[in-house]
């Protein structure tokens, strides 16, 4: 894969002195303009990759917090075209690495080729498609390869023997799901993450980020001991959901705290 491929922007975001912080928000929550500002604020505060959720009517992998965000985005009449316009607006100011969290039917309906082409044009490095397991990946793989956009595989605590097949052709990064069930903040993560990540690392060279349930800097630091990065969704969406005057400041504060936790952890372990 050549270096100007969009997927490379994601992998490069892991080549830093600290562990990688990936922040999630839903496009258009609560409005198009606010989303653009939120993304720029997160980027400014050092968020390494921003994962943008495209709202969907049936987000089977998402819990109540992100479902509510989808509803707010629908109220703002966000469409797939609008999401691309939103990314274009971000790109005028920032080259922060981006990925989409999108359900397959949205991509299918938009047209696979058209969707991947626009991703490449806007340097969206990869897609996380929760309802596309590797067995069905042939659906979109030719387009992902043609445009150099990563299909970021999700590995579940139950993936077990499936891990080598799931991550075999991974580009960008691998999304390790910390807990069973849907997205949402959790106080406890019971999965043996070290073992899971080790199994993934054995099967692929691309970096591994852990997501689902992580919300505090302490948790992030702990999880980062075994992974290359952490993904935070619901905790960020909760800040956005309050829709206060100082939302942007709070987002920056949160991202800064997370980044700090991820770098201090690394320093300590050195």
């Amino acid at each position: 894969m050549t270096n100007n491929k969009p997927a490379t922007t994601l992998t490069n975001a892991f080549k830093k002195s600290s562990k990688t912080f990936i922040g999630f928000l839903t496009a258009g929550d609560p409005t198009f303009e606010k989303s653009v500002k939120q993304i720029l604020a997160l980027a400014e505060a050092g968020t390494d990759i921003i994962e943008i959720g495209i709202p969907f009517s049936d987000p089977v992998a998402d819990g109540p917090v992100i479902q509510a965000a989808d509803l707010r985005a629908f109220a703002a009449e966000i469409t797939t075209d609008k999401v691309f316009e939103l990314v274009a607006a971000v790109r005028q100011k920032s080259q922060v690495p981006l990925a989409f969290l999108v359900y397959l039917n949205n991509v299918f309906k938009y047209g696979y080729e058209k969707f991947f082409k626009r991703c490449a044009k806007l340097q969206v490095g990869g897609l996380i498609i929760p309802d596309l397991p590797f067995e069905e990946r042939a659906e979109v793989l030719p387009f992902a390869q043609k445009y150099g956009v990563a299909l970021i595989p999700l590995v579940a605590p139950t993936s077990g023997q499936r891990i080598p097949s799931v991550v075999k052709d991974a580009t960008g990064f691998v999304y390790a799901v910390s807990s069973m069930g849907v997205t949402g903040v959790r106080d406890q993560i019971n999965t043996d993450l070290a073992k899971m990540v080790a199994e993934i690392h054995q099967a692929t060279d691309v970096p591994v980020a852990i997501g689902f349930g992580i919300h505090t800097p302490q948790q992030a630091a702990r999880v980062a001991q075994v992974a290359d990065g952490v993904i935070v969704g619901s905790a960020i969406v909760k800040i956005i959901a309050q829709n206060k005057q100082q939302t942007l400041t709070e987002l920056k504060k949160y991202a800064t705290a997370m980044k700090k936790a991820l770098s201090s952890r690394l320093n300590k372990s050195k």
Partner: protein
Amino acid sequence: MTEQTKTGFFGEFGGQFVPDQVKEALNQVAAAYNQFKDDPQFQQELAYYLKDYSGRPTPLYFAESLTKYLKGAKIYLKREDLNHLGAHKLNNVLGQILLAKRMGKNKVIAETGAGQHGVATAAAAAKFGMECEIFMGAEDVERQKLNVFRMNLLGAKVHAVHTGNGTLKNAVDAAFSYFSQHLADTYYVLGSAVGPYPYPMMVKDFQSVISREAKKQILKKEGRLPDAVIACVGGGSNAIGAFAEFISDPQVRLIGAEAAGKGVDTPENAATMTNGKIGISDGMRSYVLQDDQGNILPAYSISAGLDYPGVGPEHSYLKDAKRAEYYPITDQEAVAAFVLLSKTEGIIPALESSHAVAQAVKIVPKMDPKQIVIINISGRGDKDVSQVARYLGRKI
């Protein structure tokens, strides 16, 4: 595409479009199903319970009065309403619960919309001494209090699902999520021929008893195959069961009646085949009601069992292959058919099944008296009488 990636497809329809978290659960179910489906002992046990617990075979009944009334083809009714609990649902539930037992599970879960499948699962779980939890949209729990009480009476715990708009689709998601987290002791009894592989195939197999019997019965009574088989289509389990044995007989028209609700030109319908487009939802590629962004639209029908925006993948395949035909029936037409069958034959059909009767009302008069039509009466209508009374403006 390799052979393996095509497992679970009917042409381009079907598949297993689910998060990796659910994969392990589905793989276990598929492995058990493939192991036992042709096992003579399993089949023998299933046959025993279908006969002595559910009351099969159900009659294929010559509806003489309705035939006279419609003045066209000769009408037979496949009486699935006479199954224990009053619907075809138990055929599938018994099959899956026996499979769960073989897998060593002592607990079953199920989704339910109106409550029919939940009640059937709760009953069979009670019979086999298994723990049972039912996932039901919070909105449906409110609307179907009687069935919630029935499930409780049968010893099941009912979870009200508050996500989304609190209806069937949310219940399915909640059940899959619970299933993937409690794999060790739990089995998920899915209620229709929908969802990811192996459910559409498995539910079809268990419901095919309908057409296996009907084919034998019609050959015995008439010495020939019917000209048409008509069934209502929600997810499509009773219809695929009624079609299965006739799919390879091209002279038999296979006709599905779907719910047009307040009309296919209104937003309030569940006419997936008429208004839907191909999409990926509920773990499968099939026709589904969706907007221009690919978001799934809420469905509506007076009949809770047909109130579903998708359809089983094999039906989508049969539609595109032009092997089966699907037509929309409005609430109004269904209620008229509900009344008609009650008055002509003394049989009160479920509102779901009334859609099939209504389709017969449309085509039978244009047919020749020498022709034969089978209508699958998927369930009895006792559960629907108060709703029909309300629809007709009667106070009871």
